[in-house]
């Protein structure tokens, strides 16, 4: 598994240590692991620290909550609509870029902490 501090995971200085801390901080099921890796690959450029999505969400959420991986209120249904229909300044993502199967894994990973 590749846990390098790549640009995707840490889009800006200061993001670096935070990103590393995040990716080591919990025990994962194999599915969560696949979902996390896909999330980093497909979404990290905007949703890691320093990315466009993180910067814009920070305007609307309390500190920490701008990072999707830390949220406990994300449901798969919400994530899937946001990805395919776009939300705010986030453009729509095609099925060639993120397939339905990949999106399901990403949604599952991001909603793992959701309180039912």
């Amino acid at each position, binding site marked *: 598994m590749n846990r390098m501090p790549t*640009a995707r995971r840490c889009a800006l200085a200061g993001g670096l240590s935070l990103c590393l801390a995040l990716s080591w901080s919990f025990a994962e099921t194999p599915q969560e692991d696949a979902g996390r890796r896909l999330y980093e690959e497909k979404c990290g450029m905007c949703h890691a620290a320093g990315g466009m999505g993180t910067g814009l969400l920070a305007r609307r959420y309390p500190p920490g909550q701008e990072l999707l991986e830390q949220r406990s209120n994300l449901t798969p249904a919400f994530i899937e609509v946001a990805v395919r229909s776009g939300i705010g300044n986030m453009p729509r993502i095609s099925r060639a870029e993120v397939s339905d199967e990949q999106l399901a894994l990403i949604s599952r990973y991001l909603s793992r902490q959701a309180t039912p």
Partner: protein
Amino acid sequence: MAFDLPPGLTAREFERALAAFAGAVGEQWVLATDEDRATYSDHFAIDEAAHRPSAAVAPLTVEEVQAVVRLANEHKVPLWPISRGKNFGYGGAAPRLKGSVVLDLSRMKKLEIDVENGTALVEPGVGFYDLYDYIKKNDIPLWLSVPGNSWGSVCGNALDRGVGYTTYGDHTAQICGLEVVMPDGDLVRTGMGAMTNAPTWQLYRYGFGPSWDQMFVQSNFGVVTKLGLWMMREPETMLGIDMEFDKADDLEWIVDTLAPLRREGILRQAPSIGSWLRGAAVLTTRAEWYDKPGALPDSVIDAIRKKFSMGWWSLSMRFYGPEEITAATAKVVRKAFNGRPVLSIKETAWRQGDPPELSAWAGVPITFPLQNANWHGGRGGHVGFSPVLPANGRAALAQFHRTYARYKEFGMDYHGSFAMGERHITNVNQVLFNKDDPEMMARVDKFFRALVDDATKQRYGEYRTHLDYMDLVASTYDFNDRALLRLNEKVKNALDPNGILAPGKSGIWPARYAGERS
């Protein structure tokens, strides 16, 4: 939901074409639901429906691309090739001609790097982040040059004459050798690649006889399936000088100070002089400062500048190489600005072994500049207006005043920059808007056309433009009754008699779709 078919096709013919594409690439990779059409539309567009595709096809291999192109000829389906389709401000993934089928090459992600020679050979789907991660993972001492929105593709960006911020920032100029699927499905390699297995494909640009690389840039003459690119070796040092300037009219002497440094090759990176809003639109929103319509008054601009310690203009320069050279360059540059009323000067330094400077000047991919679309709140966007000017202070200042007056007249907030080429300036102006404000959106088109008109009167042409304005801009290149456009269309019709490749790209229309010209 009803949607636009490719012009001239019936629904049944279209279905048959899609079935044929599915036979070539697999059913899963023919994307033709309403949701798919929306995901390939331009979310920044003034009118998304004007460029909505009918479907997308996403091949994985060169052979599949050839098969799709041949089938498109057979079924008379126009294709719009994209690499990753993140061309925000210029059309995103959307085609010029609505109803076209997007040829999405983003699944093609092979890449090779020749570390010793500092070259890469990438397929269209290789993003700046992919290339960066690959280099880091394999500990390769090469640097990228990335655009301010690095979400896109190395190949697609270079093919649209994209720019970055290191000495390799003129991305089209770094192209060395292409592999191209021609409109009839034939496969060509340019330059030394025309010789099978030549070890020099990425080393010598021209090959033997006419050299074709630039023919496939901003054109619709072929589908590029591999692109060779020169890359910068990690420098020993990257020293820099950041400057802020207080007055809008300082632009004239800033340009005149930089122009000789660029022309003589002392400054090898193209520094960009950006207005205060370039920085501010990423850091804050308009609503935090002002709640009235119309261009921001000077008092508000002053308050924003004060809060973020910004000049009216900002300028960042970076020097790359052994410290003996970069330190001397910094000295020469500082001397050139001696005695000038610079508001503030900051020096920066990065040396090999330091933690990576996570910025576009160090070729690290970024997306945060996209935050500027949120300037007005709501679902934001922008179109880019980018005329090419001579590298001359008087000309730059006059163009700035003309443009600024138009922004005020149309009640828009000025967002401009002047990127210093070796002998020219690329004057990129972003027209930031709020798609949730119909009154503002109604002004944008007229505003844009006024900007083009003003520039044309000065005989300034644009270097790149949005789908909506490709015909307009092409028409301004008017020497001898638009002889260049006539030549382009002669070539187009000869290579692509069925007109299937990107009809309308850069204003070049094949005979088959000539009636679609705006």
